[in-house]
C-alpha cells in the first residue's frame, strides 16, 4: 500500500485505478483478505476504489538429483522422474507489485 502510494506520488498521478499483484502460492497471501483490508487502508487516499488484479505463480519444484522441474501437487515432494526426495523450491515465493494503472 505505501509502495503503491509512494510510486503514484513520484509519478505525479492523481488517482490509482488498478494495482497488479504477483503472488506466489507459497507466500501465504490470501486474496480475499488483501482485497478486504485494501478497502480500509485505501480510504481517503488516491488509491480509494482501485481494483486489485492478481497473477498467481504456482509452486514449482526442482529435483536436486536429476534437475527436472515439476509443479507442486498435493504436497507431494517426490520427483516424478527419478522419485528423488531432494527438492528445491524454485517458484511460488513471488510477492510484488507488477504495475499500476494510474491517471
Amino acid at each position, binding site marked *: 500500500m*505505501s*509502495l*503503491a502510494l509512494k*510510486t*503514484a506520488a513520484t*509519478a505525479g*498521478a*492523481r488517482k490509482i*485505478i488498478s494495482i497488479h*499483484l504477483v503472488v506466489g502460492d*507459497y*507466500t*501465504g497471501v490470501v486474496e480475499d483478505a488483501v482485497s478486504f483490508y485494501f478497502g480500509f487502508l485505501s480510504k481517503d487516499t488516491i488509491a480509494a476504489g482501485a481494483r486489485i488484479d492478481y497473477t498467481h505463480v504456482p509452486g514449482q519444484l526442482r529435483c*536436486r538429483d536429476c534437475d527436472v522441474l515439476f509443479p507442486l501437487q498435493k*504436497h507431494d*515432494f517426490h520427483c516424478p522422474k527419478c522419485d*528423488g*526426495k*531432494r*527438492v*528445491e*523450491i524454485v517458484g511460488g*515465493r513471488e*510477492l*510484488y*507489485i*507488477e*504495475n*499500476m*494503472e*494510474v*491517471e
Partner: protein
Amino acid sequence: MAARTITIKENILGANAEQAEINRKRLDGHHVRMINIMSSPGSGKTSLIMQTIHRFRNKYRIAVIEGDVASSIDADKITQQNIPAIQINTSGGCHLDARMVQTALDGLDLDRIDLIFLENVGNLVCTADFDLGAHKDVVILSVPEGDDKPHKYPVAFIEADAVLVNKIDVLPYFDFNSDTFPEIISGLNPSARLFSLSAKTGEGMERWFSWIEETLS
C-alpha cells in the same frame, strides 16, 4: 488525464527487508547475536529458551524478545529468571515484522547483551516470510505435530539454519517417523542442521548447546 501504466516490479516486503538489515547492522555494532525461533504454538519454544538460558546464563549475557498475539505470560516467565525480556503483542497479528523488533531492541541495553532469543509468534506460515534481522533462524517441530509438517509448511523449513525436533521423549506414543525425517529436511534444505531433543528431559540438548556456542564464537 489519460490512464497510464507504471511498471513497478518491487517486492511488497521490501520495506521490511530494509528494516531487517538495519536491525542486523545495529546488533552487529553492539556485538550481539540474535536467534529467531519459529514454530507452531505449543512446540516448546519457551521451554527450549528457558533451558538454554539455564545452561548459558553464567557464560553469556542473554535477553529475550517475546512475540505473542496477546498477554505477557512468556515474558513474565523469563523475567522471573532475572533475564531481561521485552514482550511484543501483535494484537491479533500472526507474525513479527522487522519494525516491531526494532522497537523491542530500543528497550534493551545492547551493550550489556551477547545473545538475544527472539521468540516469534506461534505460527509456521507467515512468520517465515518476514526477515527480522536475526543472525540465525531456527524452526522447532514437536513430535506430536507429526513429521509431515515440513511438506505442509515448507517455507519455514527451507530457510532455517537449524531444525529442532522437540519432545522426543514422547516418540513411542506417536506416529512420528524419526528414521525418514532427516531425509525430508535434508531434501528440502541440505544446509540446515538437524537436532532431535527433549527440552523437558534434556536428552539431545548438548548438541544444540554446542551449536549455540558455535553461533556465538
